[in-house]
Each structure stands twice: as structure tokens, then as C-alpha cells.
């Protein structure tokens, strides 16, 4: 049992997502590289844009990526989605090289504060991506607004259904 648990922990490089509390969402994963290297991939725009919106996420592409990763700096990402452009922007509240990056999400009214930490683990990096929403309602809203598909997707479906009649 112990052996299994150990090998499981070592081999663990899968992505885990957990709603940690009413206001928090946490994503974790282990990367086979030291924190300094993983931090570079998060803090240099040229590197960041190569993985943040991978090709396998159908229909969305990263059009531009400006980031000034230091405390007080700003970022702006623009995505293309079926002819529309969406912008995500905010500022870095706290940046400690090779340790953590904290930023705001200012495109919405009740945006989360995101904290990414890089922890050394036997030559690897435990990465924790943590989102803190201003209220339970804001996180609920983020949830019901997207994959639960209540407002947006249903509005589209409603349109399709009404066209059919």
C-alpha cells in the first residue's frame, strides 16, 4: 500500500483541480524541471505564449501577449475566437522571481486574484495555481457562466431552437 502511494506521488504529474473553499479554486501539477526554469516559462512573454493557449483548445488562439512581470507591472492578452477578440488584462501585485507571481484579473467586475507559486521538490517543481474570488457568488457565477452553460450557451441554443420552429 505504502509503496503504491509513494510511486503514485512520484509519478504524479497530472493536473488536479479542486474547489478549495467557497471562494477559491486551486490547480496543481508537478513539472520535471527546477523552479527557475518553470518560472521563466511563466514570466517571459515569448515562452509564455507558446503554451498558455495550446492548439488542442479548439477555436481559440492567442493573438497578442504583453507582459511586464514585476511587482506593479501590467499584462494584456488578446484572444481570437470565431472572429471575435477578447482581452484579458490586469496588473502584477507581487512578483518574487522563481517563487511566485500574483496578479489581478481586471476584465470583469468581480475578477479573481491569481497566485502562482513554484516550489522545489527533489529537483522538480510543484506548481500551484490559485484563484481567489471576491465572493462565493463571484466564483459560482464564473462556474455557472461557463461550462455549466446556463446563460451563454443556452442563449445560443435558445436561438437555434427558435430558428428551427
Amino acid at each position: 500500500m505504502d509503496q503504491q502511494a509513494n510511486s503514485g506521488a512520484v509519478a504524479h504529474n497530472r493536473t488536479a483541480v479542486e474547489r478549495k473553499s467557497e471562494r477559491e479554486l486551486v490547480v496543481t501539477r508537478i513539472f520535471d524541471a527546477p523552479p527557475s526554469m518553470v518560472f521563466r516559462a511563466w514570466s517571459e512573454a515569448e515562452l509564455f505564449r507558446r503554451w498558455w493557449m495550446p492548439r488542442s483548445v479548439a477555436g481559440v488562439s492567442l493573438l497578442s501577449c504583453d507582459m511586464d512581470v514585476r511587482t506593479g507591472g501590467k499584462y494584456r492578452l488578446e484572444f481570437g475566437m470565431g472572429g471575435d477578440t477578447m482581452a484579458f488584462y490586469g496588473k502584477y501585485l507581487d512578483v518574487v522571481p522563481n517563487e511566485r507571481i500574483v496578479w489581478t484579473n481586471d476584465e470583469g467586475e468581480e475578477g479573481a486574484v491569481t497566485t502562482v507559486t513554484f516550489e522545489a521538490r527533489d529537483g522538480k517543481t510543484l506548481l500551484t495555481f490559485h484563484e481567489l474570488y471576491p465572493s462565493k457568488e463571484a466564483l459560482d457565477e464564473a462556474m455557472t457562466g461557463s461550462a455549466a452553460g446556463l446563460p451563454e450557451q443556452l442563449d445560443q441554443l435558445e436561438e437555434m431552437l427558435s430558428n428551427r420552429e
Partner: protein
Amino acid sequence: MVQYSASLDLSFAALSDATRRGIIDHLARADASITSLAQKFQMTLTGMKKHIAVLERAGLVISEKVGRVRTCKLGPSGLEAEAKWIEAHRRLFDARFDALDELILEMKQEEEDGSASE
């Protein structure tokens, strides 16, 4: 035209109404009696019962009568919403982090090549 399955039609039709979407949203936070829902959405008991019946047929809401009070809560389809969202989020980050893994491999290779040529 596109064909939909009957059960899918049922849930989409059930949710095509703003009040019914509001009811789902409300029940996602707490169970409620039909009476309190009627008050909350400022409509008659009969009107609310009709909305609940539509949501029940779609499996989005289930209701249970205890004594004189009928209590509503999210049904299986409604309860899945949060789990689905979490799963969608996990897939997105999984795809991102797989791409990041590949990039890290390249970075390591470059570092090795760099130190080998020194």
C-alpha cells in the same frame, strides 16, 4: 435542420426561460420550498408550480413533499453543473501544462546544448 434528442430538447426548453434559469441558480445555493420560490420570484403559487413541473420533467429539479411543504432541490442534471465546470477547467489546464511540459523539454535541451559547447 439539426436533429436534437428529445431529452436534450427537454432540458434546453426548460432552461430557455429566464425565470427557470433563476430558479436553478437559486437552488444551486440552497434548497427551497415552492412557496418561498414563488415569493422570491414574485409570482403565484400556481405559476411557480408550472415552472417547477417543467424543470422536473427535464431532470433539472426534484421535489419532495414533507408534511404540507413541497421542497425543491437540484436534480441530477443540475448537480452535475459544478462537476462539469471543474472537469472543463481541468482539461484546459491539462492541455496547457502538457504544452508547458514540451516547452520545458526544449528549454532543457537548449541548456544542455549550451553547456556542451562551452
